[in-house]
């Protein structure tokens, strides 16, 4: 169950976050983890997520994410502060921060100048800026891209209980001006939407 201390609730209220009385679920974790910024959800730099992140809207990650990120019809940006240790599936992926894991995109992957990316990239178009650090394999063959993404799609269409298991989904939040760090766990099968 997702538990938070009173002090955190006070901080949330000050930040404009209004949890429902019964929101002790993945929904509340995700709302807390991903604040909206214009048309793009944002996982802020004080947020740590250990588990699966899934959704159908554009996302920017400035925090730490370990596990899997699936935004199959949307765009993902890993910001300068972002650290992602996960396999990532998205329409397009832009890396400004640090990634360790495989990146799969149906359209393109761009690795910007100060990024540090280790792992494999599978996408029809790949751009790596001069000065970016990348080590791994790049597969731009359309057939390979389709194979990889259809495998991911099959996994996503399975009933939740039959998907590759996520041991747990932990959302750690370390708000500014709060020395104490709290850890919240949510149902792993729910993921974070």
């Amino acid at each position, binding site marked *: 169950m997702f538990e938070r201390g009173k002090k955190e609730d006070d901080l949330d209220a000050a930040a404009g976050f209004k949890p429902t009385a019964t929101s002790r679920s993945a929904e509340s974790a995700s709302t807390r983890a991903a604040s909206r910024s214009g048309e793009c959800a944002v996982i802020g730099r004080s947020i740590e997520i250990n588990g699966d992140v899934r959704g159908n809207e554009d996302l920017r990650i400035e925090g730490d994410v370990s596990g899997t990120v699936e935004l199959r019809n949307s765009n993902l940006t890993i910001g300068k502060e972002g650290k992602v240790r996960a396999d990532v599936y998205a329409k397009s992926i832009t890396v400004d921060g640090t990634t360790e894991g495989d990146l799969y995109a149906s359209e393109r992957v761009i690795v910007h100048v100060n990024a540090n990316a280790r792992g494999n990239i599978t996408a029809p178009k790949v*751009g*790596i800026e*001069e000065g970016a*650090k*990348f080590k*791994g*394999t*790049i597969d*731009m*063959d359309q057939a390979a891209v389709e194979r990889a993404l259809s495998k991911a799609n099959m996994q996503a269409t399975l009933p939740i209980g039959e998907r590759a298991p996520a041991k747990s989904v932990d959302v750690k939040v370390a708000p500014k001006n709060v020395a104490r760090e709290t850890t919240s766990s949510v149902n792993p099968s729910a993921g974070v939407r």
Partner: protein
Amino acid sequence: MGRATARAPIELPAALNAPLFRMQVDELETSACRVVLDLGAASTPMLDLLGRSRCRVEIADLAGFGGIERLSIEAPAGALAAIAASLLPSHNPDRDIDLVFCWDLLNYLKPPAISALMSTIAARARPGTRVHALIVYSERSMPDRPGRYVPDKDLKLVNRAVPASEIAAPRYSPELLGRTMGLYAIEHARLLANGMQEFLFRLKR
């Protein structure tokens, strides 16, 4: 690999005509999907070029990830081979390497390190795999870091690195390279306009 001295950077041609490189690209474009290992850093122009040929590209970026320093230690051949293996991208046993680009990198490694690295690559490569390399030949000195070569639209190679100082060049001879890279045979060698020699090695087995 001598001590670095502060001198004016070497003037390099803006774009280097490398016929053996062009030959390899032409071959890629007429063949089925290939696996290419690039020991240098990834670049968008190179990926665009290889993407046209539906290649799978393995990027090691040895210079960028401390590979030159790690391979420069005095160690037995087995230990150097283990270091070399750890520096390469993870290998897919179903997709052996067909072509290797190691432009300029070999100039910064000592013969035992070259031997360990190229033997490690040979174990992951198909028979007949080719290795394309640029070796400093006529100049006595070279920049203190490997060049960052990228192909232009005419398939000429442009060095985008900005060296700050120079070191002594090892000027490896074809004979020494042949002995050091015993699993490979020299297929072609050409002297280029910048004083480098362009080599095409072929895996013997």
